[in-house]
């Protein structure tokens, strides 16, 4: 299994290179082994959900994909090419937009500025183009049917749910081929959660590869094309949504059903 090339899994049912793939990735923080062996393939035009218990390694996996942590072992492939990333700006250069679990918003900056962080519109080389920054933010929010009183509102004055939506809107603004989301509905009510699901579906239909961590199995089954289960630092199984059900996924999460690593279809 450890020598299995990346292409074979996907090749079994579609001739397509994964937009993003992890091969046998391991990661330790000092003595603590956060990831043992993670194998993952995410394709363009799919909502790929990662589920698992607390401490299964979901967020660590996402931080490796986001360029915040480096993997100790294994490979990270983007569109079939092996890459290494030293910081978050490189992830962006490789076409990856991220919605972090802690949202990564700066409380003392306003909505428009937060949405532009890391890619701030300029006039000439050194000047900030505030008008364009605010117009872009307003456009994205309008596209997503999110109403915000003013893009000049400081993030610190928004509620948890509003912040979460702004964080998602920021990732959408980047308009990159791959989008990672870590628990994007954690602070949201039922209506807002459905709205986020709709946004994910629209992005998927636009051909983006969506990778989303979620605890909310109802949300997962409503929007997933593919589900990977992580347990104790391993990816124990990946299933297409139509080929699995809640009971199997819960069994895989808790370990009641033993997974077989990188297999896709039984």
């Amino acid at each position, binding site marked *: 299994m450890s020598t299995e090339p990346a292409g074979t899994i996907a090749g079994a049912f579609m001739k397509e290179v994964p937009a993003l793939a992890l091969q046998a990735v391991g990661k330790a923080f000092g003595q603590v082994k956060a990831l043992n062996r993670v194998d993952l393939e995410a394709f363009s035009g799919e909502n790929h959900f990662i589920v698992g218990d607390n401490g299964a390694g979901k967020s660590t996996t996402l931080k490796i994909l986001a360029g915040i942590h480096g993997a100790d072992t294994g490979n990270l492939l983007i569109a079939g090419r092996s890459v290494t990333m030293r910081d978050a*700006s490189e992830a962006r250069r490789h076409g990856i937009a991220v919605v972090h679990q*802690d949202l990564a918003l700066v*409380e003392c900056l306003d909505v428009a500025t937060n949405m532009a962080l890391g890619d701030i519109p300029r006039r000439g080389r050194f000047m900030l183009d505030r008008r364009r920054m605010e117009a872009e933010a307003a456009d994205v929010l309008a596209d997503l049917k*999110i109403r*915000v*009183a003013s893009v000049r509102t400081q993030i610190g004055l928004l509620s948890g749910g509003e912040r979460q939506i702004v964080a998602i809107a920021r990732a959408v603004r980047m308009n990159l081929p791959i989008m990672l989301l870590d628990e994007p509905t954690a602070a949201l009510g039922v209506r807002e959660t459905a709205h986020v699901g709709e946004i994910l579906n629209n992005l998927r239909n636009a051909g983006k590869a969506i990778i989303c961590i979620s605890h909310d199995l109802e949300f997962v089954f409503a929007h997933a094309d593919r589900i990977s289960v992580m347990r104790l630092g391993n990816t124990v199984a990946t299933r297409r949504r139509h080929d699995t059900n809640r009971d199997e996924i819960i069994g895989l999460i808790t370990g009641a059903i033993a997974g077989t690593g990188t297999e896709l279809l039984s």
Partner: protein
Amino acid sequence: MTLTATPSAEAQKRFFSAESLLRPETTLVAVIVVIGAATALRNPNFLNVGNVTDIARAAVMYFVMACGASLLMIGGGLDFSVGAVFTLGGISAALLMKLGVPFPLAIAGGIIIGIFAGYINSKVIERLHVPPIIATLGTFFIYTGLCVQLTGGQDVVPLPREFQALGQGAVLGVPYVVLYALVVGAIFWFMIERTPFGIEVRAVGGNRKAAIANGIKVNKIDTLLYVMEGGTASLAGVIYAARVGSGQVSAGGSGVTLSVVTAVLIGGVSLLGGLGSITGVAVGALLLSEIDNALIMAAVPPQYNTIVVGFILIAAVAIDHVRRERLYRIRR
């Protein structure tokens, strides 16, 4: 499906008036006017052109240093070595002139030494993981000792007349030093308010983890901030040397460090980073200088100066806490 963000119009109106009261400039200008009026009642000479010029001239030394210090503090840093770098910049330029280096080059030399001192500060913090307050306290002692070592404890005199003229001259009654401060202030204001760099500095100071997650190169920004702080401190030192006509070993020291930090805090910059403006700091420096002057003009004993400054400092930081609490509280 819509999400309504932010308070209702009514709430926003309330919030707006509270906001303007919390703006440091508003309160500080009011305090300046009150103190000015009270002093002018006791001594009409307070409002003389000559005296107002004196107030401005005394304010600019601290303001130039406070520009670098404000940007640094907005970015989440702190520099206690500023008083020593101030001295170091002045005597380095003076020593170079004594060695026969033309004064424009000597000025550049003094500033470059200060920039280097700031670079060392940033690397001690970054590489050795020493908290900024301790790292720069350590370098404060080191740079202070270095100044004595370089000069043998003696002031460096005499300095060329042309150099002294740069610190002592005036145009249309406005001292050159005030003009330098205006230029430095304008540059820093522009950097903070009108450039992507300024936004990134606020992001690093406002939420460092978020800045990293957004791909901002935080270590590079830290280094730039300490370098600029070293640059403004040594620039102020050079200006001071020109004004007094010598490279003084005792020019700076802990008193200058504390005054600069005080000016920055009174000006509404948050010790915890993210918040603050150059206009606030300019008004803060002016207020400190005004108090100094006013108490003399009103024949108030000098100990009242420090007592008043202490109260204002505490009030400023207490107000900052209120501002931060509104922004950094997690609301559900």
